[in-house]
């Protein structure tokens, strides 16, 4: 492959959308009410739509007649580059919202920068994605406030979820070796520079929601290097089931 770094860089962004879309897809038909069910499905749809644009581009870079589905379904776990945050389970609605909010805030900052990428494909995908992601961000931010400043029970549950997922936030700002080269080429976004703004925005909303901003000293990492949590194998087992059971067929 002539541009392995760029390929990996794209996966580093796209795999987040794939795995989070997959997690949200699990919830379809099981939401707390019909409106929320539809909204979460909608976010899942947006994320898969973005995933397809990235993978189609990645497949082109990879050459050898690779398709978006090869990229999506036919890698081993160690080759998926999503952050650990997005693979965390739908423990309850509080976790779904906390995971979404902690990701959306990052995602929006990333898209805002990526739309100025020197790579016109990536810039175009980001430009199109910004509208969607700002909607996701508003949706999850609003729910953080509703749950945080709703009832005692909801306050407790959303705080528990924020506390539980907080340790996965730091990884969002790690720069891998591949990333560094793509950033240097004026294509990639240096996510380490988004960190301060991210925690500022997140803290503002959490505070408005009457929630406590966690003060962790220890953070989890590994997703970007393909070292995932134990959750990931089960996600891939479902995701890849058809492609692995019936290889080389058209669907």
């Amino acid at each position, binding site marked *: 492959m002539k541009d392995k770094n760029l390929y990996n860089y794209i996966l580093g962004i796209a795999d987040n959308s794939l795995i989070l879309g997959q997690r949200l897809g699990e919830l379809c038909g099981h939401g707390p009410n*019909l409106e929320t069910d539809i909204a979460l499905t909608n976010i*899942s749809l947006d994320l898969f739509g973005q995933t*397809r644009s990235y*993978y189609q581009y990645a497949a082109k870079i990879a050459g050898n007649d690779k398709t978006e589905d090869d990229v999506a379904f036919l890698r081993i776990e160690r080759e998926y580059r999503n952050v650990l945050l997005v693979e965390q389970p739908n423990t309850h609605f509080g976790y779904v919202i906390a995971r979404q909010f902690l990701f959306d805030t990052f995602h929006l900052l990333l898209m805002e920068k990526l739309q100025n990428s020197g790579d016109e494909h990536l810039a175009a995908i980001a430009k199109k994605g910004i509208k969607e992601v700002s909607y996701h961000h508003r949706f999850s931010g609003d729910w953080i406030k509703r749950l945080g400043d709703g009832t005692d029970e*909801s306050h407790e549950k959303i705080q528990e979820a924020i506390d539980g997922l907080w340790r996965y936030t730091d990884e969002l700002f790690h720069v891998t070796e591949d990333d560094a080269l793509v950033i240097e080429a004026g294509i990639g976004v240096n996510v380490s520079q988004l960190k301060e703004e991210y925690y500022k925005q997140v803290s503002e909303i959490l505070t408005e929601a009457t929630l406590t901003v966690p003060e962790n000293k220890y953070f989890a990492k590994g997703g970007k290097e393909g070292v995932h949590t134990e959750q990931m194998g089960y996600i891939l087992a*479902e*995701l890849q089931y058809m492609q692995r059971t*019936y290889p080389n067929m058209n669907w």
Partner: protein
Amino acid sequence: MSEKEVKNLEAIFETRIARDEKIEPKDWMPEKYRQTHIRQISQHAHSEVVGMLPEGNWITRAPSLRRKVALLAKVQDEGGHGLYLYSAAETLGISREEMYEQLHTGKAKYSSIFNYPAITWADIGAIGWLVDGAAIINQVALCNTSFGPYARAMVRICKEESFHQRQGYEILLTLCNGTPEQKAMAQDALNRWWWPSLMMFGPRDAESPHTEQSMKWKLKRKTNDELRQQFIDQTVPQAEILGITIPDPDLKWNDTLKKYDFGEIDWDEFWQVVKGHGPCNKERMNARVSAWENGAWVRDAAMAYAEKQEKKKVAKAS
């Protein structure tokens, strides 16, 4: 209101129905008309929402990204149909909570077809082709129904359903043009979904308790047996194009009557599933009830938050 006045209103109402005028929520209507519509529209809404489950089950396992996105969109459409049908029923003076309550306690029914399991990818194709196909035949007939909100919801729903049906058929067409394994998967799905799809039109006319009144009110425009026949006549040639066989040895073209003769439906199975003993009745109800119960704290939080915001607004204004 005196008996005479009621009689008078009834007469006006019957004339309007006869003239094919739409009845709107604020119009006077006989109590039985109202109840029948609540029953049917809520049952229809429940079917959409329960119907999300067998297909939703395949979202995480869809075989390609394109199929995954299409399936998600389809299941989302069904949620949307549920929403506008619940809204149409609400215009008749019942709340969504009451309707859920009726669903969860088994007082309200939903289409029995969703008590069958979706166990292979081909089932997603078969559900689109046959189940949505049968639903469209039922629903096209309802686009002219006398109750305005229901008729208007139906027009919109039918458009989306026919898209779903084509999508389902296309899934099967791809399988039938694929490997022998894929074609066998399609045949197996047809074998399992054919008869339950025919049952979707309900009992035979002679055994359908609501048909006569519903025809009179133009809530129904054709009988169960007429609609079932229409479905069979339309579907058999589509199966031929796919190159798979409908699992009915008695199915054959009747050249005199210009329609297909078909074999006997297993009515014992039909009633067994209607009465709650189908393959997935319990699973479907558990899924709905758990979603509702697990979501209670979320709905409570949203209410509490809205009240707090409202109070803040009032405090600011004063």
